């Protein structure tokens, strides 16, 4: 149980919550499972990427999309939240990567923000895509950004994969976002000679490897997204929709 220091809207439908963690450290790419409410409806914890971790304070950035996240958004600062974590693996680009492209779709920016806070430098460029300008999160927190929106209300109109193409050669990609985007990035990496890591999402029962509710088919067989992921190497996922 950690005290909530901040829980406020970032943009329409998006919130940022910071709380005192009862774990000592988290790495960019890892996630926490948040308990929502005090009763059994909703029952399961909700997975949220760690979007920041400093001085024992854990930050998540979330979008209110359903029952659980709507309740999360109602919790007041000063109350407590029960977070299980940090869980899963993390982004781990080779230390000699010359060009790192952070590709985030919508709320997928959350773990990339954390990575950038820890490791950001001249060699990292953020490619952020969203439906509208309201869906472009945290852009001011990245050193260099390329932005696209589907409605053209910010950056270039279109998908983030469009500007990405020309930058891919020899790059190392860290991507998080909707499944369709991740598959497109995965395909493009192959086509344009890039490698990298993709952070996936599936419904999760437990978050720590025991329910087998979150499996992903990969080149190396069935993997549990929560313990063998959420981060998978490009070229390894066998995409299913």
């Amino acid at each position, binding site marked *: 149980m950690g005290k909530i220091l901040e829980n406020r809207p970032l943009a329409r439908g998006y919130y940022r919550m910071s709380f005192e963690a009862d774990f000592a450290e988290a790495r960019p790419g890892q996630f926490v499972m948040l308990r929502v409410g005090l009763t*059994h409806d909703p*029952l399961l914890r909700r997975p949220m990427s760690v979007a920041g971790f400093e001085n024992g304070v854990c930050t998540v950035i979330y979008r209110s999309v359903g029952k659980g996240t709507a309740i999360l958004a109602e919790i007041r600062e000063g109350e407590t939240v029960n977070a299980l974590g940090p869980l899963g693996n993390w982004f781990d680009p080779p230390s000699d990567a010359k060009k790192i492209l952070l590709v985030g779709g919508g709320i997928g920016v959350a773990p990339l923000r954390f990575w950038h806070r820890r490791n950001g430098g001249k060699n990292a460029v953020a490619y952020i895509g969203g439906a509208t300008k309201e869906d472009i999160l945290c852009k001011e927190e990245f050193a260099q950004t390329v932005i696209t929106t589907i409605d053209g209300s910010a950056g270039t109109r279109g998908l983030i994969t469009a500007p990405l193409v020309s930058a891919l050669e020899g790059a190392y990609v860290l991507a998080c976002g909707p499944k369709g985007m991740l598959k497109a990035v995965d395909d493009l990496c192959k086509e344009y000679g890039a490698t990298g890591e993709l952070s996936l999402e599936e419904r999760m029962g437990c978050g*720590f490897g*025991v329910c087998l509710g979150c*499996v992903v088919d990969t080149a190396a067989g069935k993997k549990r997204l929560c313990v063998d992921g959420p981060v998978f190497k490009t070229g390894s996922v066998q995409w299913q929709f």
Partner: protein
Amino acid sequence: MAILKVRIGSLELSNPVIAASGTFGYGMEFAERLDLAAIGAFSTKGLSLKPRGGNPMPRICETPCGMINSIGLENVGVDAFEMDKLPAIRKSGAKVIANFFGETEEEYTELARRLDAMDGVHALEMNVSCPNVEKGGIEFGSDPAFLEKLTAGVKKVCGKPLIVKLSPNVADIKPFAKAVENGGGDAISAINTLKGMSVDVKTRRPRIKRVIGGLSGPAIKPVAVRMVYECARTVKIPVIGLGGIASLDDALEFLIAGATAVQVGTMNFVEPGICQRLAEELNAYCEKEKIADIASLIGSLITE
């Protein structure tokens, strides 16, 4: 300390709180979240002769106070269990119930023989909610006469306590409980999941790829308590109660209704330390209520 010991056949558990099959992995996944030796026992993910990959995704979804799963009995298989999992578990001091299932009677017997011989496996839990391939997909647990025969056959090769886990998807659970007792089973565990379904209105698709899955969690507790009560009044062998347990009061409900021990399933996902917490709370409760021996609580329901 109150006496919390309970017996399941020849097996003595230090307390009646058991982690349920399919919700506790192969045990070691919880080693850093609780003391495996502090809970009564745990039941492994259901084991089959060969490893199984399980069902396509999506496999789980949430429902009001519950969840549906259709994992499809994915497991490492009995060989890998023995080689890769059991050595570490043995060291942990945990009492292990090996949950298992087959597609034919022979598979059940063969599995029981294997597990019975394994050092570190303390009891067997036979899951009969699986379709019998030889009988055209009819579930093993859906015909009392067949269940009795299966139980008797398995019991013949199995010296360790044999628990038979019953399905709630029956009109009347009592004949099934009786069949297990008549077949020589040492205990019954009830209940497995209720068949349920959920539809994603946006996509008009079932939320579970296989359409129908198993409903678990607090939502099913009233059905589970009822069936455990019915079983406990039908047979003399111990009944292990489960279905929706999330708190000390929930566990007590089952014990008072007649369960000798309880299992916690879905709530392990939400609160990984829950089994140990409940074991501790049960002890504190007995001390506070001056219950010297948990035996006096079991089946103590007053209905006059």
